């Protein structure tokens, strides 16, 4: 018997075995634990770490929590070792680690790391600021991820999220400055995202060009276009065309809700774009899972032939999904020039579109989970702002790597079995 036949046989046999042992999660747990142990062991820090769970203006004031830094760090290492061992035992018994073990592990790792970083530092680790900043930074990621989820659920891979964010940021800055209205800028951003989505749809759906190719090339196209227009138009006319500083959306405190301790300042003291984001997450979830439109969208992404047989127009449905997704990503693009900055700058999205794409995969193509993944990446990005204040011995470049390393680890290990919609990225040709 040849090796090929043996392989084939093995495949058949394995298909009947219930499941193979999967050590992915325990291995990621173990390597994270070892890395943190090395970090704490090699550069011990003396003193206490101070945590604050609220701001002084809260309705209920929560006192500062002071913990001994290194002791706390080592205790969390202990918890992590136990969880890792548990994960190994479970994997050895063909069982999956429960999701709350992963959450507990992440919280323990994070808390220990912050205790280590904050040990002996004069600055207080303000947990509320850390998380509310993360929510703000995550806004473009979440919008990008929502758009990505809709597109991929309909069977169109959207690598062009980056292009949509960038084009929207540019258009928002230009239109808002010229019209003097941030709202006009926001609408223009949605139109810009829509327009880029139309390019994607034209080539990917109508002309059936490979979607990854279209996406990557569209990113190059939009980067070149916005940089060119920025240099030729916006730079010479800075004040009349690229000045959203006086128009930026400011944070709105929602009375009542914002005085809830901890959660209030995190969730209910944000800009209008953040509130729209909460609505968008819920709306996309509802639309995808509870409406006829969503069922059809998912059907054409999963099994277009079957959907077609049932009388659903596959390419029409895909077009609609891609265009709606483009408009949603456009709102995220507006964040760059209407919230976080007072002007457009070339390549200001800095690859966040690609991180949104990672959030889509990390979130297993589910809008709520993808949004949570976006928040996680926002948290990792905000972490290096906070750590900068604590004067940790870790060089800043390594902290800047953090979100990317987290993404890599997440995509490689913690995702578990991620499965794309079956017809994701496959153009549909009616037979």
């Amino acid at each position: 018997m040849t090796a090929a036949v043996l392989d084939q046989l093995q495949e058949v046999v394995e298909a009947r075995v219930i499941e193979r042992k999967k050590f992915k999660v325990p291995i990621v747990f173990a390597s994270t634990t070892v890395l943190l142990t090395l970090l704490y062991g090699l550069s011990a820090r003396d003193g206490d770490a101070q945590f604050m769970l609220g701001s002084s203006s809260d309705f209920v004031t929560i006192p500062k929590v002071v913990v001994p830094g290194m002791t706390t760090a080592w205790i969390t290492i202990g918890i992590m070792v136990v969880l890792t061992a548990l994960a190994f035992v479970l994997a050895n018994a063909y069982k999956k680690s429960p999701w709350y073990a992963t959450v507990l592990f992440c919280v323990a790792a994070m808390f220990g790391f912050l205790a280590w970083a904050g040990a002996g530092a004069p600055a207080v680790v303000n947990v509320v600021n850390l998380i509310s900043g993360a929510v703000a930074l995550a806004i473009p990621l979440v919008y990008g991820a929502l758009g990505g989820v809709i597109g991929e659920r309909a069977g169109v891979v959207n690598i062009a999220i980056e292009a949509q964010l960038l084009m929207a940021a540019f258009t928002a800055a230009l239109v808002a400055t010229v019209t003097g209205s941030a709202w006009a800028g926001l609408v223009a951003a949605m139109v810009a995202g829509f327009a880029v989505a139309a390019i994607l749809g034209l080539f990917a759906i109508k002309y059936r060009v490979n979607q990854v190719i279209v996406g990557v090339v569209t990113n190059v196209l939009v980067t070149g276009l916005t940089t060119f227009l920025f240099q030729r138009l916006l730079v010479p006319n800075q004040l009349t065309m690229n000045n959203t500083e006086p128009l930026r959306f400011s944070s709105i405190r929602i009375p009542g809700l914002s005085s809830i301790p901890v959660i209030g300042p995190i969730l209910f003291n944000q800009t209008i774009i953040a509130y729209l984001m909460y609505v968008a997450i819920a709306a996309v979830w509802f639309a995808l899972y509870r409406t006829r439109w969503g069922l059809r969208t998912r059907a054409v992404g999963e099994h277009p032939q079957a959907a077609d047989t049932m009388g659903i127009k596959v390419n029409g449905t895909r077009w609609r999904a891609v265009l709606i997704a483009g408009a949603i990503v456009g709102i995220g693009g507006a964040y760059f020039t209407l919230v976080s900055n007072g002007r457009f700058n070339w390549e200001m999205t800095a690859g966040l579109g690609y991180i949104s794409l990672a959030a889509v995969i990390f979130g297993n193509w589910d809008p709520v989970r993808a949004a949570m993944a976006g928040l996680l990446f926002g948290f990792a990005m905000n972490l290096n702002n906070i750590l900068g204040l604590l004067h940790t011995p870790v060089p800043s470049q390594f902290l800047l790597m953090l979100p990317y390393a987290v993404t890599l680890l997440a995509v490689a290990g913690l995702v578990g079995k991620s499965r794309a919609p079956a017809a994701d990225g496959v153009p549909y040709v009616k037979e």
Partner: protein
Amino acid sequence: MSDETHIPTDPEVAKAAADADPPEDNRWKDAVREIFSASPWVAVGALVLAFVVGSIMIAFTDSRVQEVSAWFFQRPGDTFSALGSAIGRAYSQLFQGAVFNVAFAERGGFLEGIRPLMSTLTSATPLIAAGLGVAVSFRAGMFNIGGRGQMIFAAIAAGWLGYVWSGLPFPLLLIICVVAGVLAGALWSGLAGFLKAKTGAHEVIATIMLNYIAFYFLQWLLMTPGMLRGVKGTPISNPVPDAAFPLLFGSRYTVSWAFVVSLAAVAFCWWLLNRSSMGFAFRAIGENPRAAKVAGINVERTMVVAMMVAGALVGLAGTQQALGVLASSGFGDAVDAGIGFDAITVALLGGSQPIGVLFAGLLFGAFQAGGRAMQAGARVDISIVAVIQSVIVLFIAAPPLVRAIFRLPQPSQAALARKADAKARAKAAKALAKSGSQDGTKESA
């Protein structure tokens, strides 16, 4: 239907979905074939469209045009002449910066006049090498967007060894540095391949994340004394004149032996993809991983190897930067100069064929060299080159669109089938003749 509708419950469908992890099986092939088999008229049409788009962008952002268009209805002639001169100036600068400069020629004769052509070759050098790397990964059904990180690691290895071992004699040091750079690129890319093969992490995400990690790592090395930080105390690495690629035609032109290395890489890739069993395995897993597995190819290992070969070629581009144009000045954190991303468009335009990549690299090298001249001479920002390049690739990838715009005839299905049939017959006849000449007795049937 419930929430589960999106997960195929039928075991066979589920298995197919899981196996289709790179669902690109035939799509890559189709896309590549589509690009490669594009008739020359489609290519010409795409080029024309790209230049039309470029002209519109130049015209609408030209300050002189904006000025005279204010009195367009009084004197339309002014607007048109301003348009003409703005576009003409830009494209003439582009040509003179990429191929032949008339002013240089008047001063120093023909050899001086072709200096821009030589700088085109210099710009094309890393584009060809990196384009080959991306092309190899395409052929193996993977998408290597990690050119930036691979080039950075290659530059780190080459630049560091070139400085530390600068006492070694000339060809030895250069060879060591190039080999080290190529290996570094291969390892960094192999990491993405390993993650894909072992954990199913999508290589697009993995390579992009590795890009950022490499970038910040380089920044750290450049900021930290005792690492790559130059003796001048700036975040620029030390110059490595002893490890530099020697110039090919003397000091008049910038083109160096690195270009010859790129040509050799083209030949190597042609051999690898078309004549070697390893290249066959690459193409097999690219076209249909399941069939490849059944045929006895170790898909996971081949994936890792393909990514390593791709990374080695991109790494070559990194060493060409560090030991070529940047050898005498040292490099900063922009050592990759966007080549890792440009390489994707080069590979696409070249149809993922080594020879195609060579010509696409030369074309894009001409755009780079000409674009710099255009930016300096006509004050048109070089980013327009990215627009022109991406428009070319988009249109070449969608021949029906180009044909529709130019009213070219759409090839009929029958004609296409005839053509494919004739090609297959010719191939079969050739194969038969070959095997017949080798062992005619066996193939009598």
